[in-house]
């Protein structure tokens, strides 16, 4: 009350915040300040995490460290870590209700029948027809079962013990869809054949199945049949999440599949079941088609509130001229992920002659990216492919 005011309130407590707190309070302004430093300072435009806009995080992969899997991999992209384990189990064709029906009926055109027909004679050639057969087999019989789990305590917000979040479900589907459309796994690797011995002329199946019967008459041996399929349960646990789970998850799936060894298996007539050999030398690795590599990007816009009211959105031609105030960031971390809205995800593979093939391209959530940017990002992705190939080859 009676305090003297002669010692003037010198300086009001300065409102300077340490960078870490500024980053939390004003995430958008913080990242913007890094990306567009004042011209006077002569600093380069760099992301808050110290990376160049199109620079990916350090990536490492490690294969085969999990004991109880047929193939496994741990992939770390920066602070995002994915563990993938592949477990193979058997699906007996005897268990498939419509399998034998499909083999004999010729009129119906259901998918099982298509399957059985395809199963009759398969050439070793890797032609397009075989691709289609592969796809039909793998898809219709659900031979690939990928599931991603985020309920590992990998980040706050994903409750442990809860059913998979929508993000997890969406990524699981994306992985399955990509496994199908890229035809990564060959169905022939998953088939377990049986060559029935010639017992005699009378055989029930021959009478019913005319097509196959005729063939069998002309040939010495009975046609071999598929007795079982390997089903690959591909489980991905995101152990640590710091943005961009898809790239890490997909890389771990590819690495784990490359590592996968299936035991030699045969149909045992006496036991009427499929038996496997535990001999490592008899086991075979999967022969994968190519090496698809996923790269994700996000677009950070300078004006977060742009596009509402007062300021009309320029049409496409005008916008191309402006072209400023937004940054394409490769491999966003958790911080950037929350600030960006527009996203691009590209999966590429390279053919033997070095030609880049796109297997999947997704662009959604905004209107700043068009042909020119996508062309550039495809180039970046194909460079990333070289990088990832080295990492995969090392593990």
């Amino acid at each position, binding site marked *: 009350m009676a305090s003297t005011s002669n010692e003037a309130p010198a300086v009001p407590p300065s409102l300077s915040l340490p960078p870490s707190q500024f980053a939390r309070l004003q995430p958008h302004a913080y990242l913007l300040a890094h990306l567009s430093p004042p011209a006077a300072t002569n600093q380069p435009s760099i992301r808050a995490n110290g990376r160049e806009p199109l620079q990916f995080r350090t990536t490492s992969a490690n294969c085969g*460290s*999990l*004991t*109880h899997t047929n193939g496994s991999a741990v992939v770390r992209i920066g*602070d995002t*870590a994915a*563990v993938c*384990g*592949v*477990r*193979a*189990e*058997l*699906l*007996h064709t005897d*268990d*498939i*209700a419509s399998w034998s029906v499909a083999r004999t009926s010729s009129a119906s055109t259901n998918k099982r029948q298509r399957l059985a027909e395809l199963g009759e004679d398969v050439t070793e050639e890797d032609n397009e027809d075989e691709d289609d057969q592969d796809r039909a087999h793998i898809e219709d*019989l*659900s031979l690939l*079962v*990928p*599931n991603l*789990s985020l*309920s*590992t*305590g*990998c*980040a*706050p917000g994903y*409750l*442990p*013990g*809860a*059913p998979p979040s929508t993000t997890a*479900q969406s990524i*699981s*589907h994306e992985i399955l869809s990509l496994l199908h459309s890229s035809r990564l796994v060959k169905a022939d690797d998953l088939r377990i054949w049986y060559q029935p011995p010639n017992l005699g002329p009378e055989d029930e199946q021959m009478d019913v199945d005319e097509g196959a019967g005729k063939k069998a008459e002309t040939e010495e041996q009975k046609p071999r049949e598929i007795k079982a399929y390997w*089903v690959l*349960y591909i*489980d991905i*646990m995101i*152990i*640590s*999440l*710091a943005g961009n789970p898809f790239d890490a998850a997909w890389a771990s799936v590819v690495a784990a599949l490359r590592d996968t*060894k299936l*035991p030699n*298996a045969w149909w045992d007539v006496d*036991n009427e*079941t*499929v*038996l*496997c*050999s*535990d*001999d*490592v030398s008899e*086991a075979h690795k999967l022969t994968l088609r190519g090496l698809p590599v996923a790269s994700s990007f996000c677009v950070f816009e300078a004006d977060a509130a742009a596009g509402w009211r007062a300021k009309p959105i320029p049409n496409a031609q005008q916008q191309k001229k402006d072209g400023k105030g937004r940054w394409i960031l490769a491999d966003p971390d*958790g911080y950037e992920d929350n600030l960006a809205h527009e996203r691009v995800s590209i999966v590429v593979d390279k053919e033997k002659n070095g030609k880049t093939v796109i297997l999947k391209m997704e662009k959604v959530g905004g209107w700043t990216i068009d042909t020119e940017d996508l062309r550039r990002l495809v180039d970046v992705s194909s460079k990333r492919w070289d990088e990832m190939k080295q990492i995969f080859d090392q593990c």
Partner: protein
Amino acid sequence: MLELPTIQDTMNDRRRINGPAEGTRPPVYASHLKSGGATDRAQRQREPTDLRKIFLKTGLIPSASGSSYLEFAPSSSLANARSNPKSLIPPSSALKLSCTVHGPKPLPRSAAFSPNLVLTTHVKYAPFAARKRKGHIRDASERDLGVHLETALRGAIIAERWPKSGIDLTITILEAEDDRWWADAPDLHDASWGMMNVLAGCITAASAAIADAHIDCLDLVSGGVAALVSDDSTEDSAAAPRLMLDADPAEHRSIMAACVVAYMPARDEITELWLKGESSKIALEKGDQRSAHEALIDGAVDAARGAHSVLSEAVRETMLRAVTPL
């Protein structure tokens, strides 16, 4: 929050990608079927009082307030099988788990008032963690582990420092321990022995993660396991079972009883004790006056002391990292 147990997670779970509707069978190995077991079983190469090496590292998961990763060194048989692969069937397995702590954070709106820190624990096996594929939904044994873990930690945390708050502790087990040698049929003394080793690992890892999250504790709790095993192939009842610290069930013919403790050395206090097996009927070797369960608890505490040295070293590393500028 609550998962409906009615949804069979293998069959038709619409939140996951399902396998073939017809169901699949795990592979059957011919060698296993023929002679009823492989010849060279895994054998314990360690001394009865030797523990497996523990790899423990904290702070690997930056989005969590505290985290740790724990790995048991593979047993000699597994290490052999790794370096010189012959069979596809692994002789034993080595525990691998990751643990995260989120919080302290405000309790959800719906929760009742609590003057203390509320600890929630979740333990989940990865589907590929064990010899038999695990389901996606937590089963009884996983819930059990969660409860045991919670008791073990609750006694160590100074909970009144965080009123109205909660922490979530989640453990993902990437590789579990076997309950017995893989080719053995379950016998009279069979129980989920591997679970006890898993619990000991969970306690040690959780304690490291809690320390990494800077949550005040009375002391670091570590887990230890001891077991009474009879390794004689002949059913000779005269041979007394031997006490083994950190017993790997895959390396022993028959485990009679086992005990896991959560132990705080500074206070010489046990926060969790779990005994399994009929220890009261077992007579120890001549000259040992202790009853079987006393011997088991002593052994488990010794094992926990061993784990504690690894734990305190890992926590010390964390602290050094925090104080030394980069």
